[in-house]
């Protein structure tokens, strides 16, 4: 009996080990915690191994794996070992990865910290041209005085969704939104033109206000918020809620989207007719709203300056990589990945590749890539966080304190707001000097 049980247990263990270590499947082997997945398609035996970490743990993960696995299968010299982990920045800093996916607004900080390798030579080896093969906006975040530090992958811009059932034509101006409010009878029906959330895409919300108002909010290496024009822009956001009632007050986390896809039929919950959010919300919004979901270009809410907040993903190489074989392998990977037919895999994930040849292919199929097609129309007006050191940390005070003050204070005065804007600037100055 004992022997049978032991044999059974040994069998189960052997089976489970085979399942974990077997290299026959393309991806999905758990590793490094519940939010990590390691890709390992082809065998790495005898090949130069390149370790690659990224944070694609959501729906886009399998599409990146498809590119990586395709490369591995095509290779007899190099092997990319991919780790997808939600905490990939911390792991990159503490562990020894050769390559990573880095957001466009992080490059300046990582570049300043000396964590990234200059990659012009890899562009040459891969037969790619940074200046000619990518959309010009990439030059604002991937190129520095001492060279190029990333291979741009995609750009995601704030996307404008609207509910055709509530508004047949998408509003284009502030006046259109006021007309929509009157049509919806917002204060009585609790159906508002839009929703401004306390958290969740809120950084894009205030960047839209500042950008469309034409504010200059950067000075040297830090953000500068304590100016009259920035104060005016935030007051416009305040007026939108408390004076013109274009958004309900007191909305919480992700409520710009929750109210947009809200299917409740009673008046207990707020609803909204349009939503400014990331393109990644398209799939779920489409599932809920079906044919009533409309996509358009951002309305000019706060001013005449066209401006669409955006972000992007890029490939970057660790400054620690000096092994020539690895560098050759990375160049080979870039050559493979930036073939339009391969890069289309990334468009399949719902992202908008920023490689020009791939963009052309995507534009040819607007039905297949509806969000990317709309995003491409606004790339020229995209605004990414300024490429200065520690920028993500510099804007945190604005995200948390300034934004909540604007959203939650019905009787907000300019003096109160300016005090917080001064605090935000002081912290940014200190962070820039670190």
């Amino acid at each position, binding site marked *: 009996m004992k022997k049978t049980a032991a044999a059974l247990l040994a069998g189960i263990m052997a089976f489970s080990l085979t399942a974990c270590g077997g290299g026959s499947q393309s991806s999905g082997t758990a590793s490094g915690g519940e939010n990590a997945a390691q890709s390992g398609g082809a065998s790495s035996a005898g090949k130069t191994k390149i370790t690659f970490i990224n944070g694609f743990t959501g729906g886009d993960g399998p599409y990146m794996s498809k590119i990586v696995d395709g490369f591995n299968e095509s290779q007899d010299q190099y092997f990319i070992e991919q780790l997808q982990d939600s905490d990939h920045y*911390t792991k990159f*800093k503490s562990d020894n990865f050769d390559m990573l996916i880095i957001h466009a607004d992080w490059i300046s900080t990582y570049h300043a*910290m000396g*964590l990234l390798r200059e990659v012009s030579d890899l562009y040459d080896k891969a037969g790619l041209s940074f200046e000619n093969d990518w959309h010009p906006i990439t030059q604002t975040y991937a190129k520095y005085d001492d060279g190029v530090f990333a291979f741009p992958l995609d750009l995601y811009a704030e996307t404008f969704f609207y509910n055709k059932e509530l508004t047949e034509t998408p509003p284009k101006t502030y006046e259109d939104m006021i007309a929509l409010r009157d049509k919806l009878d917002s204060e009585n029906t609790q159906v508002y033109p839009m929703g401004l959330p*306390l*958290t969740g895409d809120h950084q894009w919300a205030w960047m839209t206000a500042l950008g469309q108002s034409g504010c200059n909010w950067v000075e040297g290496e830090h953000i500068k918020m304590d100016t009259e024009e920035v104060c005016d822009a935030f007051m416009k956001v305040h007026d939108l809620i408390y004076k013109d009632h274009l958004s*309900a007050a*007191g*909305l*919480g*986390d992700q*409520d710009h989207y*929750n*109210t947009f896809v*809200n299917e*409740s039929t*009673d008046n*207990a*919950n*707020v609803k909204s007719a349009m939503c400014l959010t990331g393109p990644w919300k398209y799939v779920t919004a489409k599932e809920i709203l079906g044919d009533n979901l409309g996509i358009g270009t951002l309305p000019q809410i706060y001013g005449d300056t066209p401006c669409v907040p955006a972000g992007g993903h890029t490939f970057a190489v660790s400054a620690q990589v000096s092994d020539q074989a690895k560098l050759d392998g990375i160049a080979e990977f870039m050559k493979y990945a930036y073939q339009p037919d391969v890069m289309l895999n990334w468009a399949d994930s719902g992202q908008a590749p920023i490689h020009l040849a791939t963009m052309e292919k995507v534009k040819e199929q607007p039905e297949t890539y509806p969000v990317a097609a709309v995003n491409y129309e606004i790339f020229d007006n995209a605004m990414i966080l300024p490429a200065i050191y*520690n920028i*993500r*940390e510099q804007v*945190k005070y604005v995200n*948390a*304190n300034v934004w*909540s*003050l604007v959203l*939650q204070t019905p009787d907000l005065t300019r003096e109160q707001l300016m005090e917080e804007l001064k605090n935000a600037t*002081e*912290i940014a100055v*200190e*962070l820039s000097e*670190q």
Partner: protein
Amino acid sequence: MIKKKTTAVLFVLPFILFFLMFWLIPFLYGLVMSLSKYSLVKGNQGFVGLENYMKVLFSSSMYNKSFWLGMKNTVIFVLLTTPFLVLGSLALALLLDRLPDNIKGIFRTIYFASYAVSVTAVAAVFVWLMKGNGGYLNNMMINMGIIKKAIPWMEQQPFVWVSLTVATIWWTIGYNMMLFVNALNEIDTQLYEASSIDGAGFGTQLRYIIFPGIKNVFFFVLMTTIIASFNVYGQPRLMTQGGPGETTKPMIMMITSTIMDRNDLGVGSAMTILMGIVIVLCSIGQYYLTKEKEELR
């Protein structure tokens, strides 16, 4: 005799090893880091003496503001939760103690069950319950006509503190209750019977029999609850992300942010040591409070 000593040492050795590896050495290393300019990325950039402590305690830097705001938020959380977690759990234990034996176990399990739930699940449930727009509680109250407009339980102060307090109490009160239940079981039932015959009511029994009987456990529960509340992280991190503004960002979140986001291990370590000192001072103060009472008795 030597063999006995060797055996004793072998028994103690694992503890000593783990104590050294996971407590003393990290603590001393943390102390060294707190006296150094230490970046998460650039590593140790040299000894700076008490500069990090001065920056945290007395300067006009962002670290000073973060530290005192974090301390203020933590103290608010401690003051809001500790009375409920100590007195509330005692009340529950007393309630259980008076239930018939055949249903005691059921209620004990019900009250304790929440303690087995992970903080992630607790946070998810309470966000769903208490969300301002579309939350279960608000929808229920609006539909019942109790309120006309949604209450921003998760969005605006002081409601956010209420949500965090309720979630914390629901989650952890069962543990303290179990400690009190065990302490109450240790009290000789004859004392209750004798005092009842002498005409003592519940209040008198509480004062002269129950409290003296559970006094040591009471102070233990009080001390561990204060320490646990000082270390709060999961609930505000998952329920409010420290907001609105930074009004629910406790000390641990400030320290994490200093180290992981601002890359400053030196200042972060100094904050950690200072927080440790505050907790130790609280514990010592409470120890002397207890000791004094015992001596008076």
